[in-house]
Structure formats: structure tokens, C-alpha cells
């Protein structure tokens, strides 16, 4: 295996693994703090049960997230030493803020998870709030570092070296806001629907269980709101990408030829050889509108991009379709949920609705992985867009594939254990909460 391919696969896998845990780490503390707050306000045992049941799962996911995040902080150098040599001083600032936020998060989580009997109730609740805030902040800082790779600013590139470094400008680059909003919302959509889905599945077995009902409700409040907001954030991101990274836009939309107006290509199989998309639905003028807010605007196609600077088309295009499809479905689920809980609450107990919510369990995370693929593969062949190529950043150590095989084996093993463990955790739940009657 080529070293560059191995390094890219290892990075993709490590990020793809870690992103799941960081989404959970951003969202669950907020959900738990909300649920605990309801318990403090109402005194109803069920809210406390929900908080405590979740906290057990969160402890496990958080630990795996912490160690897989550590792996990434080393892998940046182990795989991309040339990149970090130049980028470290430029994007070190968001990483150091991230370090701070994560530190606070880890401390507060320790207090939250183990301090139930040692602290005043409201102090305990505050520790949960702190976990939530610092979790979201650390997510934003990491995404800010990534967004700099898409929109590098805050330095001058002179003879293969970064000069006049301005870390503040680098952190608040043009992409940080749109990317951060999109990621945080994605984390809330993915985690909330996954949690709601699992509880909905368990409700299907025992529909009188208040515990699961409350769990679904709490999760879906956050999931629905985030899922409805996400398409707007996506539109904001898309317009931003169209402006800054026309090559990425062309790749994800599989737009081979610059068009005015450009039609939106839905689905299909990009055919690089013939420069067209087979089996796709074309909606006239829509891409022009989505990318530039004008039905007759020109959208740059891949033909405007020099051949050696073109990203691959197949992967970003398909990943983008998957992300949009999942996102749209979840946004509709969100609208339905808000509508039903406002007007037709009895539907929320219906079998078809619970089945549907159970079906949405993995969709948010699929969308997260797909979206991450779009932004990373769509940036290729660059590691720092327009400045440094990925192939020039890779470690010169031969045999990187062994690193990749090793880490893959470890993560596959961990995934199996986690799935097995969570199943076991979940299967023992009803025994504890069977008594709860509506």
C-alpha cells in the first residue's frame, strides 16, 4: 500500500471514529443537564432515572472519546509532520483553547459522574452545565482549526515557509463560523436522534414505560430543533463553499462543466471519463440559486480548475447526497415531532411513529460521517487549501501501512466491544425501570 494512501486512510479512520464520540460528548451533557434540571424543578423520579441511566453510557463514550482524541493529537504529527511543522504555530491557538475547554470538560464530567452523593444538588447540576458548555466550545475550537485548512489565512507563504503569522486571524478565518455552526448542530441532531431511536425501540417492546417516554421526549426536543435549523446552516455553508472553494463545490455537485445557469444534480453516478453524471435527476437552475442566491448565476465547474488541483468527484458527490438525504429526513422528522407534540400528542405513542423514530437511530451519524467525508475529500489534493499538498505533508517513514493496520485493528476491536457492552447495558435497563407506570 502506498504510504500516502495509508496515512490518509488512517487519518480518515481515526477522525471518523473520534467524531462519533465527540458528537456524543457535545450533546449528552446538555441533555443530561436538561433532564436533571427537570428533576430538580418537578421532583419527579423519572427524570433522575433518565439522567442517571444516560450518565453511565456517557462515561463509557467519553472515555473512548478522550483516548481517541489523544491519538489524533499525536497522529497529526505521526502522519503529517511536514504539515504540523508549518501549521502548528498558526492553528495552535484554537488547539490550546480546545485543550482548555476539554480540560474543564473532563474535570466537570468527573464531578458530574461521581459526585452524586457528595455534592449539593444544584452544584451537581452546575457541573453538568459546565460539561455541556465546555464540550460545545471544544468542538467549536477543533472545527476552527480544521476550517483554517479549508480557508487558510493569517500568514504569508514565502518560499515554502509561513511568515507574518497572525494566529487570531487564522482562527477566525472565513470558514470557521459556517463550519462550527454546521458541526455543532450536526452533533445535536445525530446524538439526539440516536438516543431517541434506541429508547423508541425499547418502547416498542413495552409501550407503558414512562422512563423511555421521557427519554425520547427529552432527546427529541433537542434533536427536532437542531434538525430543523440544520438545512439553513447547510445553505449558509454551501454558499460559503461556493465562494471560497469552487473546486469542492463542483466535486460535491458533480458539476464537470461551468454552467450559467447550473442545474442541481440529485443522486446519480459521476462518470469522470465522459464528464457527466449517469442516472441522475437534474433540476434546472436550482444549483445557481443554492450556491449564489440567484437562479441565473454562473457556477464554476471542474473544467475551470487546473487538472492537478481537481478533487475526486465520485466520493464527495455520493457522500454529499447521503448527507443531504439523511439530513432532510431528520428535518422532516423534527417538524413532525414538533407538530405532533403541539396538536396531536396521541400519535407520539403510536407504533408507526415509534418504529419510524427507531429507524432514524443511525441516520444522524451517517450524515455526520458523510459530511466530514465531503469536506475532507473535497479539499484534496490540498491539505492546506491552495498552499500545501497532502502528498507533501505526509511522513517520510516507509511502511506507514503497518501503523494503519494496527490502529484499524484496535478501533475495530473497540467498536465490537462497545456495541456489545452498550447492548448489555441497554438490555439490563428495563429491569430497573419496569415498575414505572404512566
Amino acid at each position, binding site marked *: 500500500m502506498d504510504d500516502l494512501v495509508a496515512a490518509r486512510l488512517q487519518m480518515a479512520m481515526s477522525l471518523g471514529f473520534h467524531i462519533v464520540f465527540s458528537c456524543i460528548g457535545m450533546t449528552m451533557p446538555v441533555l443530561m443537564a436538561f433532564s436533571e434540571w427537570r428533576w430538580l424543578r418537578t421532583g419527579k423520579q423519572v427524570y433522575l432515572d433518565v439522567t442517571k441511566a444516560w450518565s453511565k453510557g456517557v462515561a463509557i463514550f467519553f*472515555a473512548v472519546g478522550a483516548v481517541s482524541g489523544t*491519538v489524533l493529537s499525536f497522529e497529526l504529527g505521526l502522519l503529517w509532520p511536514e504539515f504540523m511543522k508549518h501549521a502548528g504555530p498558526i492553528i495552535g491557538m484554537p488547539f490550546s483553547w480546545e485543550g482548555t475547554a476539554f*480540560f474543564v470538560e473532563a474535570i466537570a464530567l468527573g464531578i458530574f459522574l461521581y*459526585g452524586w452523593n457528595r455534592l449539593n444538588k444544584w452544584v451537581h447540576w452546575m457541573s453538568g452545565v459546565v460539561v455541556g458548555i465546555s464540550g460545545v466550545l471544544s468542538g467549536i475550537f477543533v472545527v476552527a482549526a480544521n476550517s483554517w485548512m479549508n480557508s487558510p489565512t493569517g500568514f504569508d507563504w514565502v518560499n515554502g515557509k509561513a511568515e507574518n*503569522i497572525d494566529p487570531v486571524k487564522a482562527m477566525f478565518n472565513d470558514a470557521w463560523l459556517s463550519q462550527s455552526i454546521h458541526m455543532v448542530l450536526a452533533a445535536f441532531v445525530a446524538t439526539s436522534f440516536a438516543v431517541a431511536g434506541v429508547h423508541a425501540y425499547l418502547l416498542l417492546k413495552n409501550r407503558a414505560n414512562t422512563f423511555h417516554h421521557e427519554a425520547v421526549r427529552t432527546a427529541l426536543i433537542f434533536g427536532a430543533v437542531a434538525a430543523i435549523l440544520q438545512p439553513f446552516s447547510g445553505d449558509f455553508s454551501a454558499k460559503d463553499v461556493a465562494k471560497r472553494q469552487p473546486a469542492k463545490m463542483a466535486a460535491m455537485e458533480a458539476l464537470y462543466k461551468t454552467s450559467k445557469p447550473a442545474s442541481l444534480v440529485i443522486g446519480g453516478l459521476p462518470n469522470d471519463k465522459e464528464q457527466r453524471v449517469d442516472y441522475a435527476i437534474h433540476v434546472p437552475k436550482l444549483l445557481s440559486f443554492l450556491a449564489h442566491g440567484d437562479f441565473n448565476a454562473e457556477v464554476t465547474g471542474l473544467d475551470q480548475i487546473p487538472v492537478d488541483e481537481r478533487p475526486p468527484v465520485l466520493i464527495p458527490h455520493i457522500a454529499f447526497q447521503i448527507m443531504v438525504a439523511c439530513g432532510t429526513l431528520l428535518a422532516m422528522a423534527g417538524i413532525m415531532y414538533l407538530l405532533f407534540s403541539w396538536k396531536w400528542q396521541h400519535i407520539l405513542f403510536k407504533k408507526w411513529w415509534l418504529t419510524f423514530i427507531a429507524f432514524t437511530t443511525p441516520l444522524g451519524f451517517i450524515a455526520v460521517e458523510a459530511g466530514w467525508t465531503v469536506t475532507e475529500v473535497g479539499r484534496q489534493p490540498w491539505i492546506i487549501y491552495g498552499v500545501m499538498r497532502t502528498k507533501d505533508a505526509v511522513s517520510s*517513514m516507509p511502511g506507514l501501512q503497518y501503523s494503519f493496520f494496527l490502529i484499524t485493528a484496535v478501533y475495530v476491536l473497540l467498536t465490537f*466491544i462497545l456495541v456489545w457492552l452498550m447492548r*448489555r447495558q441497554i438490555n*439490563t435497563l428495563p429491569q430497573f425501570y419496569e415498575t414505572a407506570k404512566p
Partner: protein
Amino acid sequence: MLVLIILILATSFVLYTVLGGADFGAGIIETFAGKREERTISRAIAPVWEANHVWLILAVVILFTAFPLVYSSLSLVLHIPLMLVLIGIIFRGSAFTFRHYDIGHGRSHRYYSFLFKASSFITPMFLGITLGAMILGRVTFDQSVGFYNMFIAPWLNVFCFMMGVFSTCLFAYIAAVFLISEAVTKIERKMYVRLSIKSMAATMTTGIFVFLAAQWEGHNLMPEFFNSPLSIACMAIVAVSVPLILHFIHTRNDFFLRLSIAIQVTAILIGWFAIQYPVMIHVQNGQHLTFLNTQAPAATLKQLLIALIVGLILVIPAFVFLFRVFKVKE
């Protein structure tokens, strides 16, 4: 500005060694303790290990922001030992948490325990090996010397191996002493006291072997050491704290016991920094990578320092609160 950043980097490294080291050491101690001790160890490290672990992340972030060339060179040349450090970190953290939260107590429990203990040896071992490679000076960036000489020889030698063994013993020693005050029963306490004394002896012995191994590998560490008054002072502190630790074990003064071992470990590390400073990585051709010749531009250092100071203002009270909640007996 640079001095402050170096100071914070050194502090986080010391704190990681003392606190994170104790968490790894707990896994080593568990190997030599019984089934009953497993619960004490679990209870002792569960609330704090993640926070302790962040000191390492902080050190890594400071390293790649402020001394990017050191970070990228380390990760290029010492790819293999660092990868193994990571494998240990992954398995230790996750196996520990799985064991702590899994409801069952059957076969899976034994597997988690095995992973937890095994990885508790791997990380300190390869961390020590990595540090050894930074001291020994076989590191080279000349690709023409071939794979073995560039990527393996700098760390696969007697000195680095001894450094690994030393770190492992040191971590076990810290953990054993910390666990004394966590013991539930008298018998258990006695066991940790015994393990503390044994691991202390092992640490001292391997410490001497580190110097001998350096000699063996042709690196004269002794004179470097005796030329630095600070190192000699640190050695004196290490020596003086031995009877103090024994005294505090005897009088059951938990707080001062923990404080004196923390000071002892800090003295060992400062003694090392003193002979190493300002070099971070000794390089074969003599062009060592130092704090001074690898530092990032001033604008970066300034922003980093702001983030670190604000961060520490937030983190330190929280950290103290965490330890007060879980480590002070009511």
C-alpha cells in the same frame, strides 16, 4: 514569554508524570495485588484519570504550537515507540472504563482486567524509551542512513530500554504510595506499604542502571549530571524525601505523604531538565533541537500564553475542587 511557556510545558509534564503516572502505575500495582484491591484501585482512579490525562494533551498542544519542529521531528523519527505509547493509552483508558461500568462479572471482566494491566505497562515503558531517545542523541534526519538507523536505532538500545524500565518502576512507585491512603482495610494498607517500599527500591536501582546503561552506550551522563548544581540539589531532595516518606507512612499522614512523593518525583524530573536544558532532542550531528532554535514566532507565543494563562486560571481551581471532592476523606 518563552520562559513562561517552557515553565508551563514543564509543569504539565511533571503533573502528568505524578498524576497520570499514578493512574498507569495503579494498573501495574494491580498486577501484583489481589482481587480485592481491584475495587479500591477502580474507585481511586475512576473520577480523576481523565482529568489527569489532559495534562499530556496540554503538553502535546504546547509542543506543537510553540516548538513545532520538535513535535514534527519527534513524531517522524520516534513514530514506532510513540505509536505504542498511544496503543497503551487507548487500551488502558477504554478497558478501565469498560470494566468499571460493565454490569457483568464473568469472562469479559477478566479480559478487561488483562487489557487494563497489560496496557498500564506498555505506555510508561515506551514513554521512557521515547524520552531516552531524546537524551541519547542517536536521532538523525538524514534519510540516507537507511530505515534501521533512522527509525529504530535511536530508541532500540540498552539505555532507552533502561529508561523505559525506570519509568515503569517510577509510575508503579507513585501509584503504590498514593494507594496507601485509599486502602479500606488494615491488611490492604499493609500490602500497599510493602509494594511502595519494593517499588521504591526498584526505582532507585533502575535509576542507577540508567546511568550505567548510558555509560554502556557511550553517553557519559555522569559528568553532565555532576556539572549541574541544580541536578545535585534535586538529587539531595530525592534522597532526603526517602526517610520522610517512610516517616509519613508510619504516622499515617496522608496529605504529607502524597506531597512528599510529588516533590520527590518533581525533583527527579527537574534534575533531568537541568542537564538537558535547553536541548529538547539531542541529534547525532550535533545540531540539537532546542527550545531556542525551534520556537514559534512571537505572535504565536503570545496567543498561546494568553490561552494558557486563561486556561490555567479556569482549570486549576476546578482541578483542586475535583481533588477535594474525591481525594479528601470526610
